[in-house]
């Protein structure tokens, strides 16, 4: 009873927090647009129309059209779905594997901990977009390959965070008493300590989301990721750049969408931390 009350209080406090609220609104809008794109878009994202190349903003095309006469808004809807999908996959892989490594090494310590953490340190020092590029060059380009590559690149940061928390918790009283009651190591790790690490992990996941969106956008800008004719926000920007003199509005649609996504997640992360 008491626990649920404090939980609710926390929830209300989070809602009062301006960062969290703004983040919720922006992320809600982004998710709504992505879901909308699943069931409806004004035009087919790959349908070309030779009559209307690089048209500016109009009622028929609220973000204009691209160099092949495709509707930018429809393509942005499709592209943000891909970006969100890759970001979600990246975070799932990164946080799952990272938590597993961090929990086991932090709890057990020993030689495996030393070796794994050396490797994680070396990987962590490496800029994540470069790390992803390295894995992409091993796996090949494409949506799934990029997701796995970015996912691996995100493992070190989560494993470091989780390991730190486990190191802090493993000799606390509640863990000792669980051990005295005969709970197995795995039970202690996943049922006793992990729930206490939850808050730190959630904040890290939200911050990870905006890094993942930024990294995916960067990779697809470099032409790595989903391949044409499928739309991706980064690729659209690199196309738009070539037609910037004749149609400067083309860069705005995909660019603003990326900014909205990142901003939403970073506000949420900021709000949770406060």
């Amino acid at each position: 009873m008491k626990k649920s009350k404090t939980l609710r209080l926390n929830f209300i406090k989070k809602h009062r927090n301006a960062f969290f609220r703004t983040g919720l609104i922006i992320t809600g809008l982004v998710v709504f647009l992505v879901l909308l794109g699943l069931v409806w878009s004004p035009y087919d994202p790959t349908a070309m129309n030779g009559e209307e190349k690089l048209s500016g903003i109009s009622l028929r095309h609220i973000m204009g059209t691209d160099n092949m006469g495709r509707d930018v808004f429809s393509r942005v809807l499709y592209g943000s779905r891909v970006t969100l999908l890759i970001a979600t996959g990246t975070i799932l892989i990164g946080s799952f594997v990272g938590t597993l490594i961090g929990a086991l090494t932090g709890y057990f310590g020993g030689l495996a901990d030393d070796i794994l953490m050396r490797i994680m340190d070396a990987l962590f020092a490496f800029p994540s977009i470069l790390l992803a590029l390295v894995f992409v060059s091993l796996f090949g380009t494409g949506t799934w390959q990029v997701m796995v590559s970015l996912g691996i690149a995100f493992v070190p940061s989560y494993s470091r965070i989780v390991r730190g928390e486990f190191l802090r918790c493993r000799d606390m009283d509640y863990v000792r008493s669980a051990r005295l009651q005969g709970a197995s190591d795995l039970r202690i790790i996943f049922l006793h300590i992990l729930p206490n690490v939850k808050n730190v992990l959630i904040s890290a996941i939200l911050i990870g989301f905006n890094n993942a969106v930024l990294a995916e956008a960067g990779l697809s800008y470099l032409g790595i990721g989903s391949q044409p004719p499928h739309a991706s926000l980064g690729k659209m920007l690199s196309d738009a750049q070539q037609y910037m003199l004749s149609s400067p509005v083309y860069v705005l649609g995909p660019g603003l969408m990326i900014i909205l996504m990142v901003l939403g997640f970073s506000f949420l992360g900021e709000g949770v931390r406060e």
Partner: protein
Amino acid sequence: MRYLIKKACMMLFTLLVVSLCVFLAFSLIPGDPALRQLGTNGTPEQLEALRQQMGLKDPLPVRYGRWLLGLLRGDLGTSYVYKIPVGSMLAEKIPITLSLALISFVFMVLISVPLGIYTAKHKDGVLDHIVMVLNQVIMAVPPFFAGILITLVFGMILHLFTPGGFISYKKSVPGFIGYLIAPAFAVALPKAAMAVKLLRGSVIDEAAKDYTRTAYSRGNTTNGVLYRHVLQNALIPVITFLGMALADMVAGSIVIEQVFGIPGISRILLTSINNRDYPVVEAIIMGIAFLVIFINLLVDVIYRIVDPRIASGDE
């Protein structure tokens, strides 16, 4: 001194581990480099001869040893695609990418340190609030999009520089640096925003500690306390961030080079990835790994100069 030698040894060991990982990863992936180089119209005998010549028939440890010795001697291998030494392919590109990263770094420090100190000093002031909101927005803008907007506004509308008009450092050093200013700005902005936030928080934390009050009670002025006491401690966490940011900036430069049409290592790296030209990719990764690890060593050394507590702690 003993500590430094220990650290340098650790650095060499880490590099060795990295080189082993890189070598194994690129040797074990499916695909026959000889077959790719020869194309589909070679005879089996030619293929066999080429494998022999490329040393692909030797066992893995021998190949690793040969590759590593080559690296130590400065021989980075031969490109599969262009069939010229990788070293000569990269030699002209590395200074360009490094210059871009360094100029970006200088920009980041020049923007973030004064702004971080100012906003901490005038906490909750008007400028502080504006900077805090602006920070959050800037961090959300991907550097390459910032680069595109900078090209649009400063290049195409205001004509402050010519987009795509890169000038080689061999032709004119001032022209070269002049062209890099806009891209460096794009690389530096998001990192500067993070640094401002970090430094501001750090200064505010330190200013609330007891020693600050003591310093005031001894009759120091606000600025005296800030610059002689608070800042020395507040800068310590920022140094780690700056070190990591420098490594990130090398990666950031690679993306931004594409935006501004700068012929640095970016284009070679991307085409090599697409062509599966592994010797080139391996060489670039090893180069960046060396840089990253070296920067970490540097941060360690600077740490001990700034914070004597660390040095006295383990000796």
